[in-house]
């Protein structure tokens, strides 16, 4: 058996022996998709809706009827002006409001852009985003039908969250979840696995052997690359089957970008392990250095646009930010490299830098 194959076999045995960790690594992403998915699907039927229609006519009534027709909404008020909305929101009488422009029908008829304002109570952020997306879906359906009848119309819905500007939806969180899962598997597991070799003293023996640092590293990370890859497939498939999250672009492109992102995270894991000597410290390092930025600063949960500028600047060096933009592009917009090359290039540059730094940091001696 060659030295390298021996290394791969050894890593595979470590992973298979540690059943609990393996189970966590495989089931955690699956569970997370379900948790995130259902968390935002709570209480989305019979939303108490108010419609502000300053100048009712056939066009606005048709739109109103569409809201009345779906189970998701219960139209509790139709108002001539938006003046009382604040009070209604505050008392909880309504959860969402649709505010039409005074000259909505007029503009539509003239082929101009008509505006609709969607206001949702987002004090409970997940249902807020759900309500918003439901309302948008109704408006878009209306728009499509008019277009089908030959009218050249454009309705620009404008969403506004009340009480909390957060927006999240199944479609938005799945790409972020992929980044999160890959970070845990790649960075955290690699860092822990390498520092474990230091703790058990086996790193001493590996170093004294003729194995080159690059062989040790590659042998170590290849296994996690495979697991990471499998996790991406699982998450994408589950998101699609359970929550009908679309994959509009190329699966190949998504997986390719996934591999790129895995390499980035693996390098981070190696870097962290080179600075630590115990699994405990490596774990804290990986949590603080990779997972927290991935959760908080990547646009996964909190939109980067609404952050103050110092955080926006920091977000630029978080690899997950770029990966999430790419993954959302591929999955939701169905765009390819022709649009995503700048982000891909940034991610590639980060990967090259980090791999170089990780290889350099991996010493050929103990101290």
């Amino acid at each position, binding site marked *: 058996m060659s030295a390298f194959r021996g290394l791969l076999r*050894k890593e595979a045995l*470590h992973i298979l*022996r540690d059943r609990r960790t393996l189970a966590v690594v495989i089931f955690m992403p699956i569970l997370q998709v379900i948790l995130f998915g259902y968390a935002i699907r709570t209480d989305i039927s019979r939303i108490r809706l108010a419609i502000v229609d300053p100048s009712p006519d056939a066009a606005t009534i048709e739109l109103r009827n569409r809201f009345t027709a779906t189970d998701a909404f219960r139209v509790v008020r139709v108002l001539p002006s938006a003046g009382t909305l604040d009070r209604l929101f505050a008392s909880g009488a309504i959860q969402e409001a649709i505010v039409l422009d005074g000259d909505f029908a007029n503009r539509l008829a003239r082929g101009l852009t008509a505006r609709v304002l969607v206001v949702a109570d987002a004090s409970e952020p997940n249902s807020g985003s759900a309500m918003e997306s439901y309302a948008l879906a109704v408006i878009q359906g209306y728009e499509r039908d008019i277009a089908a009848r030959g009218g050249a119309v454009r309705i620009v819905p404008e969403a506004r969250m009340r009480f909390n500007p957060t927006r999240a939806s199944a479609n938005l969180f799945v790409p972020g979840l992929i980044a999160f899962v890959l970070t845990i598997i790649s960075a955290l597991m690699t860092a822990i696995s390498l520092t474990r070799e230091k703790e058990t*003293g*086996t790193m*001493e023996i590996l170093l*004294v*052997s003729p194995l080159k640092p690059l062989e040790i590293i590659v042998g170590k990370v290849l296994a996690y690359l495979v697991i990471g890859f499998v996790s991406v497939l699982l998450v994408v498939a589950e998101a699609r089957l359970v929550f009908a999250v679309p994959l509009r672009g190329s699966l190949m492109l998504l997986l390719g970008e996934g591999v790129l992102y895995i390499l980035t995270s693996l390098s981070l894991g190696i870097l962290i392990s080179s600075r630590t000597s115990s699994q405990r410290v490596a774990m804290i390092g990986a949590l603080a250095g990779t997972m927290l930025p991935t959760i908080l600063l990547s646009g996964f949960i909190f939109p980067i646009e609404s952050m103050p500028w110092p955080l926006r600047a920091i977000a630029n060096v978080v690899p997950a930010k770029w990966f999430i933009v790419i993954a959302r592009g591929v999955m939701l917009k169905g765009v390819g490299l022709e649009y995503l090359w700048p982000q891909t290039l940034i991610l590639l540059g980060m990967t090259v830098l980090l791999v170089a730094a990780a290889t350099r940091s991996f010493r050929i*001696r103990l101290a």
Partner: protein
Amino acid sequence: MNAVTVEALSKRFADVVALDAISLEIAPGELFGIIGPDGAGKTTLFRILVTLSVPDAGRATVLGRDVVTDLWELRRRVGYMPGRFSLYPDLSVEENLSFFASVFGATIEAQHDLIGPIYDQLAPFKDRRAGALSGGMKQKLALCCALVHRPEILFLDEPTTGVDAVSRRELWELLDRLRNTGLTIVVSTPYMDEADRCGRVALIQRGKLLGIDVPDRIAASFGRPLFAVRAAERYRLLIATREFANAATVFPFGDVLHYTDRRDGVPPERIARELREHLQARGFADAEVQETRPTIEDTFMARMGEPERAA
């Protein structure tokens, strides 16, 4: 050509001098012991010799190759067993062994003549995870792993520390057999009584060499008459012996006390008689004082001087 040459090797960590200008030579085929307590610098020396660490000053060669510049060649030719258990506890005995064989492109079968005697003792446990082995078995497995690529020289850092007396004895028997195959073996230990197992030994304390020689000559170099003092109630005996006006050193030693006198040129019989009388006057009617042969430990204690003081 020497198997190991060390010239004025020094290494310090922050404000601790781990090795202080150490020089020694080890011939091919020797079973060489490096003997000293924790913190003496044994592990630092080993790590430099197996290319894991770089000295601050001085030079070292192993198998004629420089340990700093020729590290890739040396790493193929050197066997090393670190001080603490350094195998994968979650892998079985056989998996550990075949992994380390594969790292060097070797196979267990091809090395059977060398590791066979050890491996046969491990064979009944070959499917057991290394973490579940007893202390002695762990050390045997580690030894096997260090031998599996047929190294030309073997470095064993404290292979017997924390191992019971029986397993220790078995390990030394194995090393003896390996020496008979012509392998050069360098082994460190904090147990002074293991020095006799080695061809030559170096005594080391706080980074300094206290002497290098064959064990018998080191023991014989003690250079003063040494007396074994025996009586019941050893603690009272210890105090009473210390109170003898001419006492230089008094140490418990196994079932006796070892005593040296501060006077030079006094016949041993007279020292023994005077000490016996002193003890009998203190109520030790059964006190026996006999001249005895010094051991390596006596020499070590005599040469280490004051034990390390608190910082």
